[in-house]
């Protein structure tokens, strides 16, 4: 029983990451009809926003420590962050410690800007082009973005820990009066889950309760009609793209403490996020979220020892297997609308 609760927790957590990435993708996919292979790269850039902020905060000048030596036997160069001089060592350390949450503030405008530049500079010219061209150009862009990151940050993962306050884990077992340590869950993952829920909720609210959102939703249902109504779709598409980029970027920022970011993390998530969006159904935001959680939970269950003993290797293929089953039983995914990306 504990094991199942635990895996549901895991699934929700994983699912929230999937849902968050898929949400941004489906906004672009569903509204603009653009197959954006650079979406994973946006996620990755979000993560590297966090890395960059933490690097900026720890920007240092070197001081020679004569008492210690480095690997060549010379006096050790010790880095002293400038921030110590501004805020003092204790406060400085606290700020550095909180670099990931701080990054969120910076990541939002940066990601919106990147999204807007991408849309204005490139994607806009591809709305009317075949999907094949969209794939080629966005794939090219994804490669370029990831190689640029690799050039500056290297290929290895870079540790970006969560603030000290969020390290360690929460004991659900003790809270529920069950055996202690039976069900524990890391604080940061709970934060990630809550954060995802807030972002998803915010995006839904934005689309549900604002006029802008109504137009966009109408556009997702029937793009032609909205165009015929004489609404300036161009500007809204730009904003949508910025929004989608921001959602992907935030997902990336918050993900950094869970797994150290590296330059190809976007590609790792790209295929998965496409699967999530399509299983959810093209053009359906709630479908994407639902599919994200469903696949997250099933993936977690598939990794349980009992399951693996019965079906060896099931953990390798569960996501794809579920995708096939869903698409065969429900022609347009879980909640897809007719006519979107079917031609």
């Amino acid at each position: 029983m504990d094991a199942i609760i635990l895996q549901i927790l895991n699934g929700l957590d994983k699912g929230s990451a999937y849902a968050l990435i898929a949400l941004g993708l489906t906004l672009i996919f569903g509204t603009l009809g653009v197959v954006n292979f650079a979406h994973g790269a946006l996620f990755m850039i979000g993560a590297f926003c966090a890395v960059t902020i933490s690097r900026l905060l720890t920007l240092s000048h070197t001081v020679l420590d004569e008492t210690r030596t480095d690997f060549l036997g010379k006096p050790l160069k010790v880095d002293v962050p400038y921030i110590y001089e501004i805020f003092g060592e204790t406060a400085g350390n606290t700020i550095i410690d909180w670099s990931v949450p701080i990054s969120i503030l910076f990541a939002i405008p940066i990601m919106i800007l990147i999204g807007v530049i991408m849309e204005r500079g490139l994607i806009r010219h591809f709305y009317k082009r075949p999907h094949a061209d969209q794939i080629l150009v966005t794939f090219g862009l994804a490669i370029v973005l990831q190689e640029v990151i690799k050039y500056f940050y290297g290929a290895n993962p870079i540790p970006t820990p969560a603030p000290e306050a969020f390290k360690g884990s929460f004991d659900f077992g003790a809270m529920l009066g069950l055996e202690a340590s039976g069900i524990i869950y890391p604080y940061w993952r709970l934060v990630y889950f809550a954060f995802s829920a807030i972002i998803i909720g915010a995006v839904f609210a934005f689309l549900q309760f604002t006029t802008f959102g109504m137009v966009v939703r109408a556009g997702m249902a029937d793009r032609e009609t909205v165009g015929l109504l004489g609404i300036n779709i161009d500007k809204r598409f730009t904003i949508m793209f910025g929004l989608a980029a921001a959602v992907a970027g935030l997902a990336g920022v918050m993900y950094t403490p869970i797994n150290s970011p590296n330059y190809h993390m976007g590609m790792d998530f790209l295929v998965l996020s496409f699967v999530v969006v399509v299983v959810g159904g093209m053009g359906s935001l709630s479908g994407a979220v639902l599919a994200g959680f469903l696949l997250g939970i099933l993936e977690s269950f598939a990794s349980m020892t009992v399951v693996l003993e019965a079906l060896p290797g099931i953990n390798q293929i569960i996501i794809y297997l579920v995708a096939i089953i869903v698409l065969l039983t429900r022609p347009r995914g879980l909640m897809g609308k007719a006519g979107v990306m079917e031609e």
Partner: protein
Amino acid sequence: MSKFELTRRGLIKSSAVVGAGLAMPTLIINSANAYTNEPKGGSVTLGFNVPQSGPYADEGADELRAYKLAVEHLNGGGDGGMMNTFSSKMLKGNGILGKKVEYVTGDTQTKADAARASAKSMIEKDGAVMITGGSSSGVAVAVQALCQEAGIIFMAGLTHSNDTTGKDKKANGFRHFFNSYMSGAALAPVLGKAYGKDRKAYHLTADYNWGYTTEEAVKSSTEAMGWETVNSVKTPLTQTDFSSYIAPVLQSGADVLVLNHYGGNMVNSLTNAVQFGLRDKQVNGKQFEIVVPLYSRLMARGAGENVKGIYGSTNWHWSLADEGSKAFVKSFGEKYGFPPSQAAHTVYCQTMLYADAAERAGTFNPCGIAEALEGFEFDGLGNGKTLYRAEDHQCFKDVLVVKGKENPTSEFDVLEVVEVTPVDQVTYAPDHPQMRDANGNAVAVGTCNPGA
């Protein structure tokens, strides 16, 4: 049967009939070479085949740095590095056999296909006489098989699976790096001492060949010591989030978690395990511990503080105080500004060992070199006394057991050596069960192929 024989660029370079105006075309059908890519000019070309893209690009870059350093030293540049401490004194800094050492580079992408394509281009286009490098066992085994076929010596880079010199060993292939068996054998006594002989272990294993051999090696040596293995779960290579594998560990009653993961998998699974607070827990009245059988310092940096206090093994570490290591760290560090990784060390050694073998054999003929390397005993390359065993072309040397450092002084200062396990403890018979093929048969190393 075959009338068309392989001919290589090396021949052309020397015998090119470059007339001022009209040149007679020459059609070479029968080879004038004694072996593949026999160097006939004033230089010899080595092929450095390392991952330059993909997740192991940084390890590849470090290997490449070490290769360049080795070439510089072989050609008499720099401070000579480990050439000065190497027990064999055949290398004089005048290239190999008097020929200037040149090199070509390629990108393995950490994919067997790409690695073979790149190696083939070095052999066919550039006339490389030896291929070396790589950062995974899949690539090593694939390229080693290619070199065997082409008649080229393969000096493996970073490859840790037993298979490379076990069931997939080849007469033209040589490995300096240690392997899964050695990791297990070296780790077990240290773990026993540190954590006691009554432990329950839970294995998470990367679901591919290297993972299998590592799990088997660690399992068998820890079980021999008295540990019990409560469970072992295979994780997909492409997994990035290990939470659903980590979460059930505490409920299993295990008190040690063994992560048979490498590279990015290792960074993520270790980070996840620490996140779940495993190391703060008491199970069975004992402190919960995590073990990482194979450490890569470059990658371990990605796990940040999570590696502190975690045991593992490594082929070499820059903090070693022997003369060879010190010389290597000095020349590498002064050239590049940071200490070398174990990948850099092993490929530097491999280059030196190859050059030295060529000098001793007096030829670049793969068979001559293989003969010179087989059973060769040496010292001064940073791992103490080492034997290149004739039966499987595997180096036998001391193995380092390391631990994540508690108070690192720099970003390179991630690991500290806790024990140097003597070579006797990690030596095994060439037909050890872990080195056999799927049917349980011992595999012979075979006969060298000079090509041509």
